[in-house]
């Protein structure tokens, strides 16, 4: 079999029969079993599940920070390792992981600097990105002077530095308070829309997964596998989305899937978008 060529149509992520076993002292731990998943270009997909379901492991396999025990991983139509070497993805973790001795700008420039982009271009790109994440006034600050939410925004800007077509995020808002969190979610929706990047987003917050995603991948633990994939069609996200009945319906659907119950067929996606739009229009009046 030949490797599929990288084309505009290549999936952002393609997983086939991915399994991961961690060798243990007494017995091996099966972290992931037989995962098949495709994330389209520009698609926003969340991985959700209880602790130990392997969602973070799966993200790291996509990032080629871990290698699968078996199965195939393609990013942008290339093997995961090639995609990592080519910097096809940007990544953000729960901890911002900024370098405290560098300014905000210099932190955002880090990946560009490591890959030999010249000073002028680096600076221009970093200035663009602080603007994008709304931190232009803090460009010269150092991370310890920033709040947790601001630090996470710098980390996201850094992940976007090389204009990746795929953004991998491991509970990036997990350590933030609820208000900041919702604000960051709004920002992320906007940024993902602006950059046209596909996003794989690990979380264990159901509302967060539903608000952000085109599809929510519900995982079950021991061994980690995909229990169900819940498509979410809420149209363009706004603050009103969080109060729309459809939003709650989708949350219920994901929650039921997490509990492993059969999903009641309540959400009729095609009709509901119009309904949601009507409600939003009424809310605006």
């Amino acid at each position: 079999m030949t490797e599929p060529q990288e084309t505009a149509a290549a999936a952002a992520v393609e997983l086939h029969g991915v399994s991961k076993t961690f060798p243990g002292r007494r017995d091996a731990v099966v972290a992931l079993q037989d995962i098949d998943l495709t994330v389209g270009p520009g698609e926003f997909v969340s991985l959700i599940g209880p602790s130990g379901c392997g969602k973070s492991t799966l993200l790291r396999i996509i990032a080629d920070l871990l290698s699968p025990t078996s199965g195939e991983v393609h990013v942008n139509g290339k093997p995961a390792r090639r995609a990592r070497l080519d910097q096809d993805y940007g990544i953000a973790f729960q901890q911002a992981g900024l370098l405290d001795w560098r300014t905000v700008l210099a932190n955002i420039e880090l990946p560009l600097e490591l890959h030999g982009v010249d000073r002028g271009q680096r600076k221009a790109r970093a200035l663009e990105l602080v603007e994008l994440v709304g931190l232009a006034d803090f460009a010269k600050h150092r991370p310890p002077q920033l709040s947790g939410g601001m630090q996470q925004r710098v980390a996201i800007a850094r992940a976007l530095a090389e204009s990746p077509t795929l953004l991998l995020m491991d509970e990036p808002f997990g350590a933030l308070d609820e208000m900041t969190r919702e604000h960051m979610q709004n920002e992320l929706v906007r940024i993902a829309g602006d950059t046209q990047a596909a996003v794989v987003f690990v979380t264990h917050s159901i509302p967060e997964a539903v608000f952000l995603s085109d599809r929510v991948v519900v995982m079950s633990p021991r061994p980690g596998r995909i229990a169900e994939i819940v498509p979410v069609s809420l149209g363009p996200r706004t603050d009103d989305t969080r109060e729309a009945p459809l939003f709650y319906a989708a949350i219920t659907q994901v929650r039921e899937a997490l509990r492993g119950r059969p999903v009641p067929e309540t959400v009729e996606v095609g009709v509901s978008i119009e309904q949601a739009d009507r409600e939003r229009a009424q809310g605006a009046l």
Partner: protein
Amino acid sequence: MNPSLRRVGGTLLPPLLFGVLFLAGWQGFVRAADVRSYVLPAPSDIWSAAVDAHTRIIAAAQTSGLNALVGLVAGVVGGVLLAAIATRLPVLGGAITPLVAALAAMPIVALAPLLNNMYSPLSSLPRREVVAISAFVPVFINVLRGLSRITPVHRELMASYAASGTAVLRTIRVPSALPYFFTGLRVASSLAVIAAVVSEYFGGLQNGLGSRITSSVGATDYPAAWASVLGAVLLGLLFYVGALLLERLVLGRRAAPVT
């Protein structure tokens, strides 16, 4: 008074006041109780002895200071290099680290008489070696700790950038080890002066502060001995402040050093 001046005043004033009170108490006690000068001379006697012999004390301080400086530089360079090697080659690191821990537990100036025997009695080398070994230990231990402290987030981030080991060293390990290095340097600079002075107690060249202290005591000129101790205290302060200034200069506005 502007705020920065007030802050300096706030940090300097209490110790200064305490020092003056302490000296006044010392002076008063010695005079009132008529303490003999071989037990404890009055600060005023020490001061006049220091003023009398100041050219010789300064010359002696220069000799001891040079020994301390040369030994300190050698120890710091050795400590940093070995720590870097131990970080890159963990097997070697595992072999060296326990030995350095043993070295740290040993009173290093105890080596002075033995090292003296190895060289000509006119050589400054044995003293500088004692200083170098004393300074090496805290620098090695701190730099090693600083270099090996890389958080899992940074490790994964650098892996996602496909960054080489050298790039990780340059962008993460060295900058995050710098505060540790300076902590080690501050400890080492004080130790260097102590080691330089004390290593002169065991014979050899008679040109440093330590030699002046022993010879003054031998000649029962206690205020002169104390005057040389004063010289050693000032020399030690000079080294410590030098290390502190270097730290401020390099780290600038970075977070306060980790101790």
